[in-house]
């Protein structure tokens, strides 16, 4: 249906899922319709503050409709809610990007 962003530690499909949203090193964008993935580096992951807001702005700019991460801070949450972006929280940090994508395809 839409573009899905997954926070992850690297730019390969075997990379581990990252439970942080603003400080994740990479974002994997998965397109439901074409089935393609693109990886986007998070330049702000080492900033001292407001990484969540910057990441949210980036996601809004990319027209993502769903974000899969481990946790969202209060500022990021407010912003994403305003732009009708669905937030999904996964507790399991041992998953790889490919495994999450497989789950999305299967449904």
């Amino acid at each position, binding site marked *: 249906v839409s573009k899905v962003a997954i926070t992850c530690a690297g730019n390969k499909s075997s990379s581990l899922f990252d439970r942080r949203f603003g400080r994740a090193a990479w974002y994997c964008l998965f397109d439901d319709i074409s089935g393609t993935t693109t990886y986007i580096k998070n330049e702000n992951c080492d900033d001292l503050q407001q990484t969540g807001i910057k990441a949210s702005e980036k996601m809004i700019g990319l027209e993502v409709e769903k974000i*899969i991460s481990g946790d969202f801070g209060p500022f990021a949450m407010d912003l994403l*809610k305003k732009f*009708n972006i*669905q937030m*999904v*929280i996964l507790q399991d940090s041992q998953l790889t990007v490919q495994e*999450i994508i497989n*789950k*999305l395809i299967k*449904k």
Partner: protein
Amino acid sequence: MPRKKRLRKVVAPPGFKGYRPYGTNNNQRNTVELLYEEYEALKLTDYDLMNHKEASEVMGISRPTFARIYENARRKIAMALVETREIITIYGNVWMDKNWFMCNNCQTRFTIPKSMTDNSCPICSSIKVESLNFN
């Protein structure tokens, strides 16, 4: 000046305004103020049976801070029971986790934005979805 307190995340507010003892001669109205975060700490440890580490992660605070809040909660409830005082709940230092849902099939938590009509779980598309908010 002390550092600003970090807001504690509370998934659902308590479903009551307070508790009052009955069958007692003690009519004085000094109440015990139970904060939302203390209620949440008590719920996570003694009802959901999480350990302090997991519970502190759910509330977005450090484990020692969680332990202090939890200890306060227990002491306040014990004080209310022993001194037959009324308990009232107070908002405290929290931010509420609104419009969150949990899938009972895969334990994923997620929001459903206004623009969306689909109510199934985004990961496993199960319909065994439960709201995490009361009222």
